[in-house]
């Protein structure tokens, strides 16, 4: 991968809050045009990492480059090239969708068309409504509209679908896929596996302030190796050679093994093992 194709480059990132080490040597690359999901449990350091990349927080140590610039020293021109959808915003409640999006468009050198953006996030019918009267999911769409109005090269989405109902999530995913298809590089944090699987080209699992694994969901699943759980009426066994076990069982039962099932670990099992909340092997 050449340097120009790396949009985010992080090496040995460290962050302490007083005596607490939240990030301890985190490495991460985000390639141009990809959607990377940062997955991890609460308190793993996802939001801290993202806020350092956005220039919102100082780091304690390590190297960070976002769009070729250190976010700790970046200026207006750099901010015009990124878009941020942060958590927990409750501002702008008295303003309408259209007023707000039009106002924010004025901050950028080459904004997208206001009406196009409102249509893209599916709020055309609500464009004259005050943001305070929208549902939670609709408000999040306003956040996204403000995040993309400046035509960002890199978009940060921090736990964007927390609290969504299933339908709103599906619609939101559709919106994110559309942005990715237009070539926007997206860095998404989430603690939903299905969201990472649905949207991301690659997934980085963060736990305890470090990246534990990074790759496509298929690659992550492969790290579990060949082990599978074989279960039947009278027992169950985890084995790297399930076929041999079943052959043995077939002999024992002289034919059909009662209530036989073979289960490969799900991505969730792999993930839970990685973040250490399930029988760790290391």
């Amino acid at each position, binding site marked *: 991968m050449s340097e120009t194709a790396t949009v985010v480059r992080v090496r040995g990132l460290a962050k302490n809050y007083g005596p607490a080490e939240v990030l301890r040597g985190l490495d991460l690359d985000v390639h141009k045009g990809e959607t990377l999901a940062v997955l991890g449990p609460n308190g793993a350091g996802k939001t801290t990492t993202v806020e350092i990349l956005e220039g919102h927080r100082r780091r304690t140590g390590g190297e960070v480059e976002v769009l070729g610039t250190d976010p700790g020293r970046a200026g207006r021109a750099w901010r015009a090239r990124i878009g941020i959808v942060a958590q927990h915003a*409750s501002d702008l409640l008295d303003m309408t969708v259209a007023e707000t999006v039009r106002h924010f468009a004025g901050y950028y050198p080459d904004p997208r068309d206001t009406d196009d953006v409102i249509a893209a996030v599916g709020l055309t019918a609500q464009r004259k409504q005050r943001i305070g009267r929208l549902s939670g999911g609709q408000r999040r769409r306003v956040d996204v509209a403000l995040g993309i109005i400046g035509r960002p090269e890199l978009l940060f989405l921090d736990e964007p679908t927390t609290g969504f109902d299933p339908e709103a999530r599906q619609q939101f995913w559709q919106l994110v896929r559309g942005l990715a298809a237009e070539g926007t590089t997206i860095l998404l944090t989430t603690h939903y596996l299905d969201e990472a699987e649905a949207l991301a080209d690659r997934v980085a699992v963060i736990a305890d302030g470090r990246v534990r694994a990074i790759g496509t969901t298929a690659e992550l699943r492969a790290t579990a190796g060949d082990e599978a759980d074989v279960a039947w009426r009278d027992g169950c066994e985890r084995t790297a050679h399930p076929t041999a076990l079943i052959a043995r069982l077939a002999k024992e039962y002289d034919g059909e093994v009662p209530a036989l099932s073979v289960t490969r670990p799900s991505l969730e099992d792999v993930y839970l093992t990685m973040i250490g909340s399930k029988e760790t092997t290391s």
Partner: protein
Amino acid sequence: MNLPGTLRIGLSRGRFEMLEFFRDKGAVIFTFSFPALLMLMLGGIYDEPIGEGVRLSQVFAASIAASAVVSTSFVNLGGRIATDRDDGTLKRLRGTPMPVAAYFVGKTIQVFWISLAELVLMLGLATALYDLRLPTSIVQWGRMAGFFLLGVTCWSLLGIAASRLSRSAKTAAVATLVPYTLLGFVSGVYIVPSGLPPVMEQIGALFPLKWLAQGFRSALLPDSMAAYEAAGTWETGRTVLVLGLWTVAGLVLCLTTFRWNDERTR
């Protein structure tokens, strides 16, 4: 690609903030009615004549008009900025190419127009109810305009600094309303200046509310009323000096303490 200019964004923020303010009905009602009610209360209680053709209610009206401007600058701005920090406004803006200066241009526009509206309302009430005369000479109009602008500038900067003292929007109300109310007593706003115990008067003289109220009285009352001031004159030069010093102090406090977010919290 050229970034939009600071002034252009600042003016756009000013419009946006004005709209936001006037749509927040609770804030509008509180901001405009609290000083008006105070004026009605005090003017109704103390209405006896003092000096030549001047009634006590007119003295109170001039002083309360000054404190009303402090409420639209200091109290309003201190609370708004703390709210902006609390509800994610500052964080959102920090993630855009909006320059910091444009945020303050917007706030300046909002505070200036709301303070002017407040002043017009207070003077309107006082002329209608207590026969307060609007300034009668160029000198008095000059004092009115000068002290208004100086007062708004000084108290806005102090409001920005005060927004930093509080961790949240809820406590910001305390950080601004408590000093505002206490100063109202020791600065001769709620009590006739000559009726204050000397210690309280001296405490009041350290802070800019007393001087703003005195400045407003010099613009709105006949010059003969200067005899009722603590010093026996309007002390225009000293008033400008004290307000000016507090303005510089406020500016220094703002530049050294203002933060976009609170690094202490996660």
